[in-house]
């Protein structure tokens, strides 16, 4: 299986930048850093199936990052408002959501983002569904996850041929 050069290049760049940040630009750290960066790139490529997986689109990621930050702050304010009220206004429960996003990194990202969203945490990711715990069953949980799923799906490039025809709406 051939590895796309771009998949190698951006990993080398990313891990190199990480090493640079961690070691504060110390020149003497590179005799250890360079082999580490190469090793990390190799391991990551092994885990990512030799760069054959769908890549994140960095520009779209930048565009929707403010949305995640804003939702995260709203989520924290929501918790704060509930726990500080003497009556403790919560009505928790489990909600099941059928996933349309294909398996892989997108699903894991979705699960982690659900945890940041106001009122929901992801409790189980299995088969083609996700079980979400909500602080308030009165919230439009399903609609909010659908919206989030669409945004996360847009982060990834088009589906490879083998993943199409999964019954996407």
């Amino acid at each position, binding site marked *: 299986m051939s590895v796309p050069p771009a998949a190698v290049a951006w990993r080398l760049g990313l891990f190199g930048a990480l090493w640079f940040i961690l070691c504060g630009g110390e020149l003497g750290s590179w005799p250890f850093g360079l082999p580490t960066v190469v090793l990390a790139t190799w391991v990551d490529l092994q885990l990512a199936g030799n760069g054959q997986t769908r890549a994140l689109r960095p520009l779209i990621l930048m565009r929707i990052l403010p949305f995640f930050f804003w939702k995260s*702050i709203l989520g924290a304010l929501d*918790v*704060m408002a509930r*726990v500080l009220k003497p009556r403790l206004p919560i009505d*928790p*429960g*489990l909600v099941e959501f059928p996933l349309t996003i294909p398996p892989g990194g997108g699903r894991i990202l979705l699960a982690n983002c659900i*945890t940041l969203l106001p009122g929901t945490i992801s*409790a189980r990711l299995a088969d083609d569904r996700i079980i979400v715990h909500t602080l308030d069953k009165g919230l439009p949980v399903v609609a909010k996850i659908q919206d989030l799923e669409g945004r996360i799906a847009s982060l990834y490039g088009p589906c490879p041929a083998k993943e199409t025809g999964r019954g996407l709406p």
Partner: protein
Amino acid sequence: MYVGQGGLIMTEVVGMVFIIIGIPFFLSGTIGLLRLPDIYTRLHALTKADNVGLGFVILGLAIQATSWLEVAKLFLIWFLVLVASATSCHLVADAALRRNIKPWTKE
């Protein structure tokens, strides 16, 4: 307050304001841990409130930082804590479901 040789430095003050904004988030996370009724609802308080609290503290420290490398390191810490806390929240909730721990419900 930091009153160095140059007097009161603007970035120190602005940074401190952000750090102080972060404190109520940590506090409400802890109040949630104490007041909420079960493992699932407590996870809500800990993950959401503490992440944002840490975000404001990091932002405040980044404003006070003296080099860009320091800023990059601070945001790297924030990112790693964010991913680790969302992931461990999911794993704790998943483990609780596997043990058939029933979520607390109203009535």
